[in-house]
Every structure is written in C-alpha cells, then in structure tokens.
C-alpha cells in the first residue's frame, strides 16, 4: 500500500535505508523532525568504537544553511560574537551567536569556502533569524538541511578508514580544516571537526550519494573496528569532551519560555568566544559589553568531578550550608577515564570564586528504592577528556 506523499510524518534521512538495516534494537528518536537511531546495538559498545576504532553517525538532521553573497563575510562577522575577520578560506570555526540582549541563541560551526560563501551548521533552526538579521547586507540564504547528507566519522582509526574510502592525504588536514574530494563520482566535503573530542571528521555530500557513501565507508573501515553510533553514545562522548548542548546545558534564548532561563555567553563558559574588541558591531555586543564591564553575570557552567561512581543525573548542587546553588545539566560515569563527571550550571560566586565544599545530592535507583548519596564535588575544567591524537598532524594512521 502506498501512502499519499503529502501525508506528514517525521522525515527519514537519506541514510535511513542503511541505518535502519544496521539497527538491531529499533530504537529511534525525533531529532529536528527526522527519525534517527538512539542506539544500534549497545550504547557501551558504540561509545567504545569512538575511543577505540571508528564510529559512524548520521548527522543529517543538523540544521545547515548556505550563506552566499558579496557581503557574506561581513554578515557572518556581524552575526556571531567571535572575530572572524581573519578567518581563512577552507577552514571551520566554532561559534556562538546571541540576540540583542546578549543572550545565547545557539552554538555551531561555520564553514568558510570564500569571502562570499559560507555554510552554517547548528542545532536550532535560524532561517528566519538569518533573514531578519540580514537587513542591509548583500547576502542570501539557502536551507540545506534536507539537501545535504552528513555523516560524522570519529575515532582513532577514522583517518585510516576515510583514506581507504578514497580521501587521499587526509592525515595532513589540520583540526578545523576542510577539503573538497571527489569520491566514487560524487563531491564529498570533509572537515576535521566533530562532537566527540577525539580524532574525527565530518562528511558532507549530496543525498543521492548517501547510500553509496555509507556502504563504502563501512567497507573501508571493516578491519578498523568500525561501528554505527547512536545518540546515546554521542551524548557520552560529548560530555567527556566538555561540549555543551543547546537546550540541555542551557536554554536557547529564543526557545526560553521563562525569560530568567536565558543565558549570556559568560554564564555558559563561552566568554572566550566573545570578542568585544572586534572592530565592527555584532548582534548583542552592546549588552555583552555592559555585562562584562559590570560583571553582573549570574551563573556559570562548570565541570564537576564527583566522588563515588553514581552518575549525578539531574542532581541539585548544594554548598556546605545545604543551600541550593545550582543544578547538574549532564552527567555520566566515564568508561575511559573511570571518573564520575558532570556539567553543572551554578549560581556565582560558586564555580568561579568558590570551588570547594560543593555537594551533589544523587538519587541512585536500586531495585525500586532510591539511595540518597551526598557526594563531594570538585570544580574542574569542563574539557574532561582531550587525547593527544585529537589535534595531531599528520593524524594517526593504522596501516
């Protein structure tokens, strides 16, 4: 029976025929209107692939926008807080952008092809925001979310896998570099970027090439411990890497129902991406400058190293007087580091000036009862795990 084509359902990505075939658990979730696997077999094994071999993740649901026009360079610099005026062609930069109140709307990566052509990749839809912000710029936008298929290929053997696939000299690509290839008759853009905090790449191509690309990469990685990788495993690797996730670690300004939930870059550990000395104006500059000068940021987002081995998921954080000083936004037991880590949003001065005598109240489920654990926490660098191989050039090869 054929369904009417107008019948609305969650979309399938161009890799769906392959991801659904690879899935043994049939566990899916809704990511930005697409159906994608949460888990293929076992999250622990998928996680290990990213730290041991090659992990493959369907990234297609990420929002992707092409920014073209003679003012594209100027526009991008106006949109984001980071100074991109010196950004080189064929490189990628990690960025955040704010609204005029200096509250963070989202983070993402910007790909520069030339002064007149960029690609923006992010979590929250901003097609309208781009248009609204573009007044006075000679620039046009194309939503490439549905027209670009994307895969993340991450892990220690990922470079070798992709070389087998046909990406010659890929080991020479620097972190945040990107290179255009033609493989099996299709254009494939490869960037040395990712969300796992490890050696890894992201591949961008025409949806028509998706199935061929998936099959070829799986074949190329056959002897290199390749494995498809779902959302749950990604969540583990990104926490270890200390990467923040919009609407998990902070609320996107435009999505916040409650105005008090909006956060400035300084309140989510992204102050380093705000270049107030950037010559030109950028959205939110006035408010951010004021916040920086008055120092009235209210929160901070920190890494916590927590005693014991019970993950502090959703825990409330207290000071020694048992006053509520914040909340855990993401937590896990790290299989690689054998550490109990978490990201937490704290009320200043906790996390900035006061880093000692902080406690997490953990409710650990034990066969229909909860054990209440009062665990001591240490404020640490958010980037928990960053192996040397992550930034090595040339990248590690397994031959």
């Amino acid at each position, binding site marked *: 029976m054929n*369904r*009417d084509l*107008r*019948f*609305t*359902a*969650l*979309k399938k990505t161009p890799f769906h025929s392959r991801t659904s075939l690879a899935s043994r658990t049939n566990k899916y979730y*809704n990511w*930005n*209107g697409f159906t994608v696997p949460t888990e293929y077999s076992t999250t622990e094994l998928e996680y290990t692939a990213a730290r041991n071999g090659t992990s493959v993740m369907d990234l297609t649901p990420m929002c992707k926008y092409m920014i073209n026009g003679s003012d594209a360079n100027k526009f991008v610099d106006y949109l984001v807080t980071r100074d991109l005026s010196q950004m080189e062609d064929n490189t990628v930069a990690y960025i955040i952008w704010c609204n005029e109140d200096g509250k963070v709307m989202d983070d993402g990566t910007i790909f520069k092809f030339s002064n007149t052509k960029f690609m923006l990749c992010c979590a929250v*839809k*901003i*097609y*309208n925001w781009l*248009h609204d912000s573009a007044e006075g710029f000679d620039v046009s936008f194309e*939503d490439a979310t549905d027209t670009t298929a994307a895969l993340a290929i991450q892990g220690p053997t990922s470079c070798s896998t992709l070389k087998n696939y046909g990406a010659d000299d890929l080991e020479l690509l620097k972190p945040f570099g990107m290179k255009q290839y033609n493989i099996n008759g299709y254009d494939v853009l490869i960037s040395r970027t990712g969300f796992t905090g490890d050696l890894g790449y992201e591949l961008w191509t025409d949806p028509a090439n998706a199935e061929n690309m998936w099959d070829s990469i799986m074949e190329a990685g056959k002897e290199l411990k390749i494995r498809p990788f779902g959302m749950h495993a990604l969540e583990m690797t990104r926490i270890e890497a200390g990467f923040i996730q919009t609407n998990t670690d902070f609320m996107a300004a*435009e*999505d*916040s*129902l*409650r*105005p*008090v*939930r909006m956060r400035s870059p300084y309140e989510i550990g992204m102050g380093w991406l705000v270049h107030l000395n950037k010559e030109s104006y950028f959205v939110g500059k006035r408010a951010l400058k004021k916040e920086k000068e008055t120092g009235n940021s209210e929160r901070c987002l920190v890494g916590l190293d927590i005693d014991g081995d019970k993950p502090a998921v959703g825990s409330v954080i207290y000071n020694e007087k048992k006053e509520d000083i914040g909340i855990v936004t993401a937590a896990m037991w790290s299989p690689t580091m054998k550490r109990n880590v978490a990201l937490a949003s704290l009320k200043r001065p906790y996390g900035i000036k006061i880093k000692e005598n902080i406690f997490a109240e953990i409710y650990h489920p034990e066969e229909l009862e909860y054990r209440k654990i009062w665990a001591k926490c240490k404020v640490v660098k958010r980037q928990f795990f960053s192996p040397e191989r992550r930034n090595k050039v040339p990248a590690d090869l397994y031959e």
Partner: protein
Amino acid sequence: MAKNTHDVIVIGAGHNGLTAASYMAKAGLDVVVLEKNEWIGGAAVSRELYPGWKYSNCSYVCSLLRPEIMRDLELYKYGLQIIPYEGSATMMRNGDYYAHYHDHDMTINSIRRHSHKDAEAYERYSRDVLRQCKIIKPLLKMTPPDLTSFKPKDLFGALEFAKHFAAKDELGGLGEKEIYDTIRFYTMSIRDYLDEYFESDITKAHLAGSAIIGTALGPCSPGSAYVLLHHYMGEVDGSVGAWGYSRGGMGSITKAMTGCLNAHGGEVKPDNEVVNVITKNGRAIGVATKKGDEYYAKKIVSNLDVKRTFLKITEESSLPGEFVERVKNFKIRGSSGKLNIALDGLPEFPCIPEGDPGGGGDMHFTETIEEMEGAYDDWKRGEWSRNPYVDMCIPSKSDPTMAAPGKHYMSVFIQYVPFNLANGGWNEERKQEFGRHIVDCIAEFSPNFKDLINHYEVRTPLELDNEVGLTEGNIFQGELTMDQLMFNRPVPGYAQYRTPLKNMYMCSSSTHPGGGVMGAPGANAAREVLIDMNIPQTGNYY
C-alpha cells in the same frame, strides 16, 4: 403551591451552575438546582434527536474545563473521560491541505510545505502564546479584586493579581519586554498579531480561527488576539492549548457534575423554569417558577447570563439604576450557528490524505484572513456568511459512544450567523435555508457527504437564546473584550460574583474568567458564597 426551603438555590443546570452547586454541596450545604429545560446541561449537553446518534448539541469540544475542578469534583467517578484530538486541518480549494498535529516537529514539517519561514516562526509563535497562557492561568481561579476599594481583601487581592500577572511562580518573573508583549496581545487584532510572525495566508487563516470562534469580532477587530488566547489557555493533561472530546459528548461533563452533586445530597430539578427572584428589603430570599412553585433559600446563585438575570427575572425596581444601565450595555452579541449531523458513514475529504491524523480533529476550509473578514462583513449586514468559517469535527472517529460502529456524528460550528437576521428575522424556512447553505459549503469538499446525511439539527443564535437561554445566542455569555474582562466582568464593581441584591450571586460565564466550558466562574462563585457563610472549604478553589 408547594413551598420549598433549601440552603442554596442555583438557577440553571449548565456546567457553571452545576460546578457551583457541587462545590457547595460538598461543603455540606443543601443545594437545589432549578432548570427550565426537561434535560440537564445548558450548553454542555448531549441529546439523541435521531435514534442511534448522540449529538453534542451546543458546545462540542473540551479543553478549557479546569483540571482542578475535575479533580475536586472527582468527575472521573461519574464517567468523565477526555479523549485528546489527533490533529487539525484546513482544506484548500486547490486540493491541498494544511495540518497541525500532536507532535510539534510533525507540525513544523507540515507547515514547511507551505512556507519555510512560517515553519520556523511557528516555534517562536508557540513559545510566545504559551507564555501568555502561563501568565493568565493563575488568574483563572482568582476572584478579581475591586481596584477602587480600600478593603484589605481587595488591596491584597490587587497585589496578588499583579503578582500573578508578573507570574513569579510560573515564569520566574517577566521582564519589561514580556509585560509590553502582554499588553499588546490583549489589545491587538489577530491579523496584526499573526502578521508579526507569518507570511503565508493559509498558516494565518488556520491559526486565526481560534480568535473568532464565538465572538462578534472579526479577525481585523482589535481585541480578537485575546479571544485566541482564551481558546488556547486550556489543556489536556498539561498539554497547553490542546483540545479533546468528552467521551459520550459534552453532556457527559454536566452528567458527571450532576453525579457529584447527587452524591453530596444535592438535587437538580429539570422542567422548573425560574421566572422571578423574590426579594424583601433589598435581599433575595427565594424564587418563583413558571409552574407556580416557590423556593426559598439563604443564598440564590444565578447561572443565567447577566442580562437574563437582571433584566428578565429580577424586578428592576429592586436594583440600582446605574447597575441596570450597565447591564443593559453589556455586549452579548450572537455570532455563531451550528449543525449537528447524523451520518450513515464516514464522509470523504479528498484534500486530506487517508489516515492523516490532521483529519482527526477540527477541519476548516477558510484559506485567508480576508475571507474570514468577508464572512464577518456579511454578519454586520445582518446576514449569515455566504462563505462562512466553519469548525467541523467528527467526534465519532475517536469516540465509540456517539454512533454505532461505522456510523458517524459530525459537529459543524459556523461563524458568522446573526441573531437579528435582516429582512424580517428568523423563521423556520430561513433556518432550513441556512442549514442547506452550510451543507452545500461542506459538500464542495466532500463528494459523498450529502448522500450520507440521515438527519441534521440546525441551530441559529435564536435557538441558542430561546432554548439554551444564551441571550442573543452569544456562546460566551458576553463578549470577551478587555472592557468586559477580569475586574470589568460583567460590570465594574460587581466582578466578585456578588450582586446589588444581598444573598444573590452570579456564577455564569458572564463573570470572570468568562465563557467556554471552563467551570471556573462556577467554582469561584461557590467559594465566595461559602466565604460569606463562614463555611470552611477544601480543594483547589479555596
């Protein structure tokens, strides 16, 4: 002539009267509800006018009924079950359709078929409207303070009202921007409001529907944006803005309330129309019925709209002149009609793909706001809309109790229909002409629709006035505009459910927070009566 004495008499067995009665009976009072019709329910009623088919004759969907009331009155015990909608759709003359679903992302994907920008704007729009809903929600169960009074109760009340307006508890405090937004929202037209978010006609037309249902405002009239909020502030189990069917029709709601009332010793007496409120020295002491019986009570609570209460059954001489003048000026204009249709099978709507959940809830065929305003223009001239806005649904798709398996009941709400029809007013012939016109309009979108019709009931504002007792057929018992909301509802100085007559109260939708099958006016009024009687109470409305 029988003479009966009770603690409380409630006039009218609609959902607010029954809510008030149940709360008071639960608090231990001896309550009797007098109803003019032979059946119970007011505008929340299910009647079988054609054998085998149950209609929701007036109101037809449920969202606004406050969950606290369902909980306090334990309505589930007396058979109440709400079935959530699957989706909604607007059919287009080019054969396409526009749909909303339970799932937010599916809705976004659906809107994107019509406009990329609108799909994203919908996220911002839903957040902003939800924020307004959160602001208004705590106000629903409060008695509006009298802003001119210096009684401690009113001073604290005003403070409490203002505090909730800034919604400290729900939203963690609003900034300047959000307060400006709220004030704009309450006073704008829905067209202007939607223009700030959307570009495509179909998106705007679909969303604007909620802003005109039941009101005598057009989509370009200032104040229509609030009407949208009024339809959005309901919920089905925390899903704000969601609508559902009441299993067994809307009559199940009033039936369940009657069940609660009976369980607490109260009684409803149908076929007992109150024609006069008996007063003595500026106090209401009882009522007289058409049958000639007299009932006496310590408190009288009227669930009739404010015009019927004070211009029909109360002696004008017992009321202050200025109050009567205000009541006369209260805007209560009928603008809606209805068709209830017994269908021999499921009508096909080729615009909507088979099995698409968009067809599971309300369906429409108005494609632009201009069409909607055109429909309103007809009403202003005293005519029914030639190209009406309809809100139609087939509850039997989800509810197995409305018709036999395979048979269907369809409810069609029609906007706009005048109370005073030009050129001679309503008569049976013109009523049937109106019914046929609506059937023709629907048949344009459904080839087999006409063949399936076994029977239909046509309701004009005149029937709603005569039979249900809604003055001029206004379903909200008074227009929902700022001049008639909160401390202005129904008239300034009398927004606290009390009236110029001692011992007489109002609990109808003419009072705060207004119309819709919400129950909040009834619950709020019961609280005020109990406070005046020094009777301790429990529950969510205390």
